[in-house]
């Protein structure tokens, strides 16, 4: 994607967004609701025309792909004629893409909808609709899959199934998967890379490992301590680039020391400790910081430390 922008009325939904999805990996496309994820994916697939910019698959625009369903499969929303059976829905698109009709039954079995294939799609549960959407995307056996919030409306069991299925598609079958979500936890176990957007702009792009490393680095040196002798401990620890904040009657946040070092000094000073733990800010925290920072660009952002103390 190169420099995509799209404005709806007064709203700049997507603003000069560029990123690349690597083959053979699962890329998580993250951002809060209204960050422009769906618009971006629809521009990628030629459903929405960008004001500026282009999106290509191996250098070719979606509309110029000779057999789009055989190259790219997309799950965008649950769109079916309610009176048409799931199997017939799939057959319609087999015909349009010049695929053999047996593909309809094959993908129904692949997503576990085989027995319900003859029923009208209008009577499907939300989870079944998501599976039918996925089946539609798989019809042409595409090397690239684009999924917009595929876990929406799935029950925990369905989410578990979806994660395993996506891992299988990407890691075992080697497909390229781009999956959007507003929840990091949803893609944390599946994605190799993440692209984070906020208010239509790119916030962060990188491997999940990089993001995790950043998260740990950001949290390193912060140690949470609870002690009935908090005042005494503060005096013992302060100095030499070590900062101690009092966050409650008996609790402190120490910056600049490891948990082991805090424990050693407290033991040496004979101070009683009730709790001692390294504060790991975690991926969710990093994601939250990145996206709220972006959303409330001009407004005053509550410092993340306050949030941790409250939680």
């Amino acid at each position, binding site marked *: 994607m190169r420099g995509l922008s799209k404005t709806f009325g007064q709203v700049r939904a997507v603003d000069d967004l560029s990123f690349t999805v690597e083959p053979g990996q699962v890329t998580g496309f993250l951002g809060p609701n209204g960050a422009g994820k769906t618009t971006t994916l629809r521009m990628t697939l030629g459903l929405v025309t960008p004001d500026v910019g282009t999106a290509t698959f191996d250098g070719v625009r979606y509309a110029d792909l000779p057999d789009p*369903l055989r190259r790219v499969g997309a799950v965008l929303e649950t769109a079916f*004629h309610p009176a048409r059976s799931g199997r017939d829905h799939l057959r319609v*698109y087999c015909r349009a893409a010049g695929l053999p009709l047996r593909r309809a039954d094959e993908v129904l079995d692949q997503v576990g909808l085989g027995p319900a294939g003859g029923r009208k799609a209008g009577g499907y549960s939300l989870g079944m609709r998501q599976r039918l959407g996925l089946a539609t995307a798989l019809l042409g056996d595409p090397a690239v899959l684009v999924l917009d919030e595929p876990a929406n409306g799935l029950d925990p069991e369905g989410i578990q199934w979806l994660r395993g299925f996506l891992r299988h598609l990407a890691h075992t079958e080697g497909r390229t998967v781009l999956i959007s979500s507003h929840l990091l936890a949803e893609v944390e176990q599946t994605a190799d890379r993440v692209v984070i957007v906020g208010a239509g702009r790119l916030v962060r792009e990188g491997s999940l490992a990089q993001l995790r490393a950043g998260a740990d680095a950001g949290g390193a040196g912060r140690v949470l301590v609870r002690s009935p002798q908090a005042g005494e401990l503060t005096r013992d620890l302060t100095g030499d680039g070590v900062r101690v904040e009092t966050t409650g009657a008996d609790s402190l946040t120490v910056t600049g020391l490891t948990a082991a070092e805090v424990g050693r000094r407290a033991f040496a000073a004979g101070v009683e400790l009730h709790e001692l733990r390294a504060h790991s800010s975690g991926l969710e925290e990093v994601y939250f910081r990145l996206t709220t920072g972006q959303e409330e660009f001009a407004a005053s952002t509550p410092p993340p430390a306050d949030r941790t103390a409250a939680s």
Partner: protein
Amino acid sequence: MGRLVRSEWTKLVTTRVWLGLLLAACLLSVGSAVLLTSFAGDPQSGIPPVGSSRYEQLAFAVPANVTVLTLILGIIGMTQEYRHRTATPTFLATPRRGRVVVAKLLAYAVAAAPFALAVVAVTALTVVLHAGARGGAPAWTGENLGVLLRSGLALVVYAVIGVGVGALFRNQVGAIVGSLVYLFVVEPIVRSIPATAGFYKWLPGGALEAMTATFRGPDVLTAWQGGLMLLGYGLLAAALGTLLAVRRDVV
């Protein structure tokens, strides 16, 4: 293009919309034929008597009275993509949207033929039996067969117009209600006001009258001119719809 047309036929036959419309069209057409035949020759109705060639032409033009149903068939065929949001998978499969509209025009033109044949057949059978019972089954003259054929063709052309209207307006309820208001309110007014009556022959209703030669109305075109003009209206709506409406963002 062949596979896109087949895809449209699969869409058409995998819901029961066509069946409901076909039954309604047959019932309406048969009902009209029965009424027409019952009151034929009654001086108060003004309908020519059974056995006259004018009655026979009127009776065999009855299927053209239900063209509104093939119009609705075409409108639903196009607008259901937006109503049920299947435009998304449809345009994912065929990103060149003009090809989808062309495929629908072709698919509905062909699919409307057996539909029209069924309506024409049951209507003709009704007329033959009923008029026969009243003392004079119509003869299969070339003129009578021509009227039947043109009524059937009118049904087909209206399905094509329906696809075009659907492409232009996208909203199913709006397109159907708008068409009904146009056909049953606007055109009759244009037809009845002397100042605008001369213009009527250039409108779809006038063209339909021209096709089926109900000959009681105002000045109309010849049958083939009328048919071609109707087809032109349908294709014009489809072309405008493709340029103005179908290309818009699917969000």
